[in-house]
Each structure stands twice: as structure tokens, then as C-alpha cells.
């Protein structure tokens, strides 16, 4: 049967049936679609809203956990060098050496700082990083046993030691790095240049070296497992480091550290 025949036959459909369909054509049921769409939209908004709430709650939970750890009396480790201007440190932060180095990995509190740095939990008890970019200083804790210098670079260790880090406990290798920043220090990418980065599988193989060119002298600091979090300068366990990420992190950090003042760090 040809479709034409069906078309011809359709001309013999009862008037009553045609009328019913025709009425529908004059007054379409568009409201049904609108209602469905509105319901679908409302459901989508609800799902997104719920997602945002859950996310917000999880963030809130993390912060609360960190705060709780703080309340347990785990002091924030900072440098204890007497030359440091401790008034520049935020309230509630103690010198690093006040803490028990052997507990460092477990007891360091990775709470958001003034710059909202989000520090994750260290991967193991022997590994601890901490940083602050206060208006005056950067503090780092790292696993000193793992550090080494890039090939071909012979640092002036005495100078570096004076300005960079010291091992606080040779047993567990936790050390403190203090990067003294001058008053006019401008923490921009130009002044902080990664010159050596070697991603690797183990925690001791991932290394980054920065040259902080802030006018006084170049200081080479060797980090182990340096990374960033949420585009804010932060340090955490990481196997790889992307230069662009560091750039972004440092630029963001710069915008946070408005007018840094010189704060001489020192070894313990």
C-alpha cells in the first residue's frame, strides 16, 4: 500500500475525531511543557544547591578539624631565632623549637593562615611541611634528610644555613627554613625563580630550588616536596611540580603579602 492511499483515506476520518484534534490545535497544551520545564529546572537548582551545601560543609569540617587540633595544644612551629621580630608573627604562633621535633610530623597543625593557605595532612609522621608568608618571613619545615643540591651547584653553605634552614632534630630530620625578607621585598615571580625542579617518585626525589632575588643577595633554598594548594603559596607532599603553578602561587602570595618588612631569620 502506498502512503498516498493512506493520505487519501485520512480524508474519510470522522469529523468528530478531526474536530477533537483541531480543538487541541487551537488551544495547545503548552502549559504541560512549561510545568515540566519549571519542575526540571527547580530540581536542577535543588541538586546544585545541595551540592554547594555539602561542599561548604566539607570545607567547614576541615577547618574545624584543624582548629580542633590547635585547641589540643599543638603549637604552630616557627623559628625561635632571637633576632626574629616575634611581634610580626600572628597571635597564637609559637617558635618552631618550642615544639617537640620528634612529634613534628604528627602534631603540626595545618590550619589556614592569614592568607588562607590550605595545607593538607602530611603523608607520614616523618614528613612535615609548614609555611607562612607573613609580612616578614617564610617558615618551612621539611624532611632535611632528603635534601640535596642540584648537580653543578655548590652552595655557600654557611651563608645559606644562616639564612635558610637548620635541622632541629637530626634523628627525625625535621628542619626549619626561615627565609628572611627585606623590607622592600616584592614577592613577585621575577624575584622568585625556580631554577631547579626534578619530579620523582619518592618524597626525597622531588626537589625545587628557588632563587629569591630580593636585593640583598641570592639565596638558594632547596625544598623537598614543594607544591601549592589552591593557587596559594603552600607546601605539601607532591611528586611533581609545575612551574606555572608555582608562578601562580607566588603571584597570589604576593598579592596577599602587601608590604613585607625585613625580618631576619636565623638558624637555630
Amino acid at each position: 500500500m502506498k502512503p498516498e492511499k493512506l493520505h487519501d483515506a485520512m480524508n474519510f476520518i470522522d469529523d468528530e475525531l478531526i474536530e477533537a484534534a483541531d480543538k487541541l490545535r487551537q488551544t495547545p497544551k503548552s502549559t504541560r511543557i512549561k510545568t515540566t520545564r519549571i519542575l526540571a529546572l527547580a530540581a536542577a537548582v535543588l541538586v546544585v544547591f545541595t551540592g554547594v551545601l555539602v561542599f561548604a560543609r566539607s570545607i567547614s569540617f576541615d577547618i574545624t578539624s584543624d582548629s580542633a587540633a590547635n585547641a589540643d595544644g599543638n603549637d604552630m612551629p616557627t623559628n625561635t631565632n632571637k633576632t626574629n621580630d616575634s611581634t610580626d608573627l600572628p597571635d597564637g604562633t609559637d617558635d618552631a623549637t618550642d615544639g617537640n621535633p620528634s612529634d613534628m610530623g604528627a602534631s603540626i597543625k595545618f590550619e589556614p593562615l592569614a592568607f588562607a593557605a590550605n595545607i593538607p595532612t602530611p603523608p607520614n609522621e616523618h614528613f612535615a611541611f609548614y609555611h607562612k608568608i607573613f609580612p616578614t618571613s617564610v617558615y618551612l619545615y621539611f624532611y632535611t634528610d632528603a635534601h640535596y643540591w642540584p648537580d653543578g651547584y655548590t652552595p655557600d653553605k654557611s651563608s645559606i644555613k644562616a639564612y635558610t634552614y637548620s635541622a632541629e632534630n637530626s634523628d627525625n630530620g625535621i628542619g626549619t627554613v626561615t627565609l628572611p625578607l627585606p623590607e622592600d621585598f616584592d614577592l613577585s615571580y621575577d624575584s622568585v625563580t625556580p631554577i631547579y625542579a626534578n619530579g620523582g617518585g619518592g618524597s626525597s626525589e622531588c626537589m625545587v630550588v628557588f632563587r629569591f632575588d630580593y636585593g640583598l643577595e641570592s639565596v638558594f633554598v632547596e625544598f623537598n616536596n614543594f607544591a601549592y594548594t589552591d593557587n596559594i603559596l603552600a607546601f605539601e607532599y607532591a611528586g611533581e611540580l609545575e612551574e606555572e603553578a608555582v608562578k601562580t602561587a607566588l603571584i597570589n602570595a604576593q598579592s596577599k603579602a602587601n608590604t613585607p618588612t625585613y625580618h631576619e631569620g636565623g638558624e637555630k
Partner: protein
Amino acid sequence: MQDYEIVELYFSRSESAISATDEKYGAYLTKIAYNITSDTEDSKEAVNDTYLAAWNAMPPQKPSVLRTFLSKITRRISIDIVRKSSRKKREGSQYEITLTELEGYIGTEDTQNEIEAKILGEAINAFLRSLSPDARNAFICRYYFLDSMRDTAKHLGMTEAKLKSLLFRTRNSLREYLKKEGFEV
């Protein structure tokens, strides 16, 4: 003007019957014609022919629903226009020439075709009555008024995807129904 008044004008052979029809149903019929021909000029021609056909049909016919009565005429005329146009495109082909030559000997089968169409129409009527209102209206909107999928979906308040699915199932059911009724499908 009420339909019965227009019909009375036809019966009294008043020429204002045409203008009254055009005023009330001109746009409606043009839409049906355009759905079929997809051509403005052809649609106008179909609608004008509809008025002429209505003039010739009334009397003796006295439609109870003028709107549907006219729509059927427009539909039939529009389909004829499309067929003629399609045939015109083939003019000059040997196939068409031989068809014309043969037609002269065996005559046209218009009467037979109309009877067949009527029988088939009755079967379709029965089939449509067995359907759900949505399926029935979808089928009529799409295959009687030849509304686009989009328009039909809008009329029925459903998505195009749902409409396509509904029509697919209805066509399949129709095929099975016609087979069962002894039609060659």
C-alpha cells in the same frame, strides 16, 4: 458569523458566502494548505479552489461542522496540487509519457480509488477510536493536518522526542491493524 448562517448563504446562492467563509476560515484553511504544499501561491490556489468546491457542494450537502467540512476539501485539493506538481516535474520522461498513453486505454481509476480510500478510511477510523486520546490526536495532527513535529508536539504539550516515539508506535500498530483487517500493507 455563525456557521449555520454561512451555510444558509451558500444555500441561498449568495456570493457573500465566499467572503464570509474567507473571513472566518481563510487563515485556517491557508495553514492546512501550506502544511501540505509548502508554497504560498499553491496554498492560495488550494484555498480558492476550496471555496469553489464548497460552492458546488452546498447544496445539496449541508455540513454540520463547516470548519471540518472545509478542511477536508482543502486537504484533498492541496494533495492533488502536490501530486500534479510532482508529476509536472517528471514531464518529458518516457515513464510519464507511457503512463499518459496507457491512461488513454485503461482509463483512470478515480472511482475505484475513492472507494478504496473510503474503505481504508473506515478502517482507520476504527483504529483511531481504539487509541488513547493523545495517540489519536497526535496521529490526526500529524497525518491529517500535516502539522510539523514541532507544532504537533506543542499542540499536545509533549516533547518532540516523546511525540516521535508515540507516532512510531502508533504507525506500527496501524500496520498490524490493517494487516489483520485484510489490507495489503
